[in-house]
């Protein structure tokens, strides 16, 4: 049977304009990679948004897989700007197969 190891999966919802700031934080934390997926619309305390691509104020998800300590370092690094930059960060444990890659 194949062996799996536990890693953290972090997903960060961010404004398209702020993606580079998030990915540089990921790079700084020494994490091997990240993946960006599109988002269509949403609602939060600051109201409803959709169809904002023309205005450049749309959002994306940045997701990254990392070992526990690097994940916490990333969360630590982003924590001070979560509120001010309207980022939404969630994380949970996942199983991966080729653990050495992450």
């Amino acid at each position, binding site marked *: 049977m194949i062996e799996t190891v536990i890693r953290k999966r972090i997903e960060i919802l961010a*404004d398209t304009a702020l993606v580079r700031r998030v990915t540089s934080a990921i790079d700084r934390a020494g994490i091997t990679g990240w993946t960006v997926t599109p988002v269509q619309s949403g609602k939060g305390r*600051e109201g409803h948004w959709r169809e904002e691509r023309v205005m450049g104020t749309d959002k994306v998800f940045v997701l990254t897989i990392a070992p526990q300590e690097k994940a916490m370092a990333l969360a630590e690094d982003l924590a001070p700007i979560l509120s001010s930059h309207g980022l939404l960060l969630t994380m949970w444990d996942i199983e991966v197969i080729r653990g050495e890659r992450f």
Partner: protein
Amino acid sequence: MDAATLQTFTSPVILFFVLGMLAAFARSELAVPEALAKGMSLYLMAAIGLKGGVAVSKSGVDTTVALALLAGIGASFLMPLIAFAVLRGFGKLDQLNAGAVAAHYGSVSVVTFVTAVEIYEIRGTPPGGFMVAVMAAMETPAILTGLLLARRAIAKDEGAAKRPAGELLHEVFFNASVVLLLGAFAIGVIGGASGFADVAPFFEAGFKGVLCLFLLDMGLIAARRLMDARAMTLRLAVIAIALPLLNGALGTLLGTGIGLDIGSTAALGVLCASASYIAVPAAMRLALPQADPGIYLTMSLSVTFPFNILINIGLIGALANNLASG
């Protein structure tokens, strides 16, 4: 309502905008895919840039052009100051949001400009091609002023302190719309009329039709945002109509003062009156993420933009006419 105004309201370009607003108010699910809308905005910028460049390649550059450029740049730097004062005082906005909104009103809306050109051409007073360069030059100075105005509010914030200043300046100067507008303008100048001939069927013949569909979409988006608006107050709505009136009049006076022709004068007025909703919001998300898009986008896109398209372009055209003949 005179004949020219009436003609405006029977123009498909304006009518599609109205259709979009009505459909949104009726809560229809009609929507243009975002990839397509973004593509249309790129097309419009490339086309207007090219056309302006070709026009300048024919007419050449003279003192008037240089003056218009200077006037535009100066206005873009200074208009945010007026806006800021009004937003802080009458509008009761905090410094951060007042700075962000002020940047929008100092900058310009490409689509408002494009629509004005269509209307002024129908009326027989087409603006000069160099006004496209003036527009591109006016996009960014206001961003710098707006950020300076909001600076103390930013300084308080630790997180944002991480933001490298270079990244921001870079965004301001290599902004996608500035690059595309100026790039296409340069291609128009280099290629001239003969280079343009080949691509004219695409960039010229299709232009008004694309503008129709794009304005349909902007009507939908502007009206939906207005219905969802939470952070808007009546005072802010009043400002979103007063500023384009004021800035439009100032711009028209400025244009007449530096001796521009009627069409270019009115176009300068429209540039001053218009508020950005493409280049500046994206820059603000980067530079002032703490500012509320619910305020600046709703003001510029949902109030000022329709007001300019439906009413103010007409008023500014009439003012330019009167100043010239007066």
